[in-house]
């Protein structure tokens, strides 16, 4: 099985540790993973802002980079959702039947990390150790667009030393929403403040989620509040082997 990492543009530029964690984790599980350097962005920032034509080059780059692989793994529910649900729309609007065909072949091979671990590899225990109190925020696109369900929880429950505490109103959006965070900054911050309040009420040391964009938003608020709660991508928790000799 030829597996490619779609690291996502935001992880590439701002959160490379998440990409490195996916590589570490998959190699530990015996999966050889490649990073095709031709990849750029899934195109979601453009599509969700209304610039569909501007997303065409990104979607083209996506299918060019990943067409030859058996599976594409991405540490982002949002980008996986974009590839599986929006690429078809962008391709159809482009009027290029070749792109429509390429998208139809590539999109179904895109897996969000927890889907790949649980469904393709059949694993919930990935050999991780992370002795901390953690609360988990299910991001909207992983929850409602992809339907990852309880896969992240099944994985977290098997991590040695990890204590998982429930997040109140967990399924409510954190308020990031891509360009929503800027175009409607006041509403975004109001939503994020409530999310941060719920996170703090759990007493957890670490807020974990499967999308760094959402974590950048909630984490930015928690940091500004000097809350002492840090945010961490799920991939980094699953890659961790703290205290393992």
């Amino acid at each position, binding site marked *: 099985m030829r597996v490619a990492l779609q*690291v996502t*543009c935001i*992880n*590439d*530029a*701002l*959160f*490379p*540790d998440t*990409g*490195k964690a996916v590589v570490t984790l998959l190699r530990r599980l015996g999966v050889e*993973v490649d*990073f*095709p*350097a*031709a990849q*750029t*962005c899934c195109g979601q*920032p*453009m*599509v*969700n*802002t*209304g*610039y569909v*034509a*501007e997303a*065409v*080059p*990104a979607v083209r*780059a996506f299918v060019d980079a990943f067409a030859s692989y058996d599976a594409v793994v991405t540490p982002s529910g949002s980008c996986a959702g974009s590839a599986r649900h*929006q690429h078809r729309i962008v391709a159809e609007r482009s009027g290029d039947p070749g792109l429509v065909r390429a998208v139809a072949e590539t999109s179904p091979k895109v897996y969000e990390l927890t889907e790949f671990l649980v469904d393709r590899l059949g694993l919930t225990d990935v050999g991780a150790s992370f002795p901390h109190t953690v609360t988990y925020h299910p991001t*909207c*696109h992983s929850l*409602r667009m992809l339907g990852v369900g309880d896969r992240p929880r099944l994985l977290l429950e098997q991590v040695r030393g990890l204590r998982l505490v429930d997040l109140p109103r967990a399924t*409510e*959006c954190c*308020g*990031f*929403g*891509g*360009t*929503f*965070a*800027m*175009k*409607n*900054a*006041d*509403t*975004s*911050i*109001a*939503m994020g*403040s*409530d999310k941060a309040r719920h996170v703090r009420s759990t007493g957890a040391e670490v807020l974990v989620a499967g999308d760094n964009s959402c974590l950048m938003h909630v984490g*930015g*608020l928690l*940091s*500004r509040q000097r809350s002492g709660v840090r945010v961490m991508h799920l991939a980094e928790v699953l890659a961790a082997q703290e205290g393992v000799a």
Partner: protein
Amino acid sequence: MSTFVGMPAFPTAARAALADTQLRHNLAHATGTIRDKRARVVAEVADWEDLRTAGAAIKDRTLHDLASYLVQLEESLTRAGATVHWARDAAEANAVVAKVAKAHGVDEVVKVKSMATQEIGLNEALAEEGIAAWETDLAELIVQLGDDLPSHILVPAIHRNRAEIRQIFRDRMAAVGRPAPDDLTDEPARLAEAARLHLREKFLRAKVAVSGANFAVAETGTLVVVESEGNGRMCLTLPEVLVSVVGIEKVVPTWQDLDVFLRLLPRSSTGERMNPYTSTWTGVTPSDGPQEVHVVLLDNGRTRALADEVGRQALRCIRCSACLNVCPVYERVGGHAYGSVYPGPIGAILNPLMKGVGVDAQTDSLPYASSLCGACYEVCPVKIDIPSVLVDLRAQVVDAHRGGVPSATDVAMKGAATVFASGRRLGVAERFARLGTRAAAKLPLAAAWTGARDLPTGPRESFRAWWKRTRGGTT
């Protein structure tokens, strides 16, 4: 009476609403209560997903052949003794209602809660003709007495708490009818009693009533109103003349189809297994109820929405407001910020679809008034994929403005299109971006982010550069 005319674009209106702590508290409490009730009663129905699918399919089938179902409805209504009027827009619909009222020489009408008549500004139009339109739904009464605007489809006074309502009743009832009792408290039962006493004299006096309809059954020409308080039943049965303003998308082919919606609506809307009052009437029944029945079939932008390939699913909407109650944006800013009688997620798509985009900044701001979290789609009883329609409308807004002076977003997106065309270009851009990050954080645009949120400092090396250097080998 206030109107939404001249409302600012969503971000500005939202900013003001977010600062209203009483509003925030009222909304969080009220939406939370309805949300939980809905979740409980929906969980009781084993075939809920099948019902949703059936509801969506019936609406799609009807919309696909809307013209013939409307003609069938008109024939059935006419056969049953009703007079059918067709209204292209608000002005035509308002003129019909005013003409009927004037023909009977009345200076007042009683009203059943109706979204269609709010959409067309009927009360204001009748006021200009010297006709008072009395709202008889409790929450609409609160809004009307308070010279206020509705902020929710189902519970239009959701932004008011009971202390505020008591004050409105004490201050305003006397000017338009029976005053509130001197010893009125803010207990719900006492407030309801005051409203009942105030309204009763209007019910008994009115010769003309105005309603909308939740559904219109084409095969028999039957209109249906679903309600909780019984005020609708009073208006539909006591007056001599009844005028109903009905959006053309309200038609359902048969009673069998209606059954699906009567099961979907109450659980989605009020979180009840069944609503207290379901009134149905078929034209005129001799010596029983109104003896003159008019039905105004209203377009007012609905055919525009129907022509929108992605957006036409919005016409499935049965106005339950489940999407409002689960929306994290609505919960925080309330309904007024949307600048329309249709607020929340459904309003963010219905208004642009019915009015068209590229005309005014307020309407163009609505498709962006969402984080695209998808909670609305999950609860919609007729499966309207609101996030997908929002994204499609954003593209329409952008396309409507292409060719003018490029905005900052236009420039950024054009730049993104170029950079994201190849991995090599992105790699180069990342190297420059790292140099510019600290400087960029000081730009005015960045303040939208950094006003309340810290920015990540950014790594020394991108993932791409790390992979190139190590092939993913060592850190």
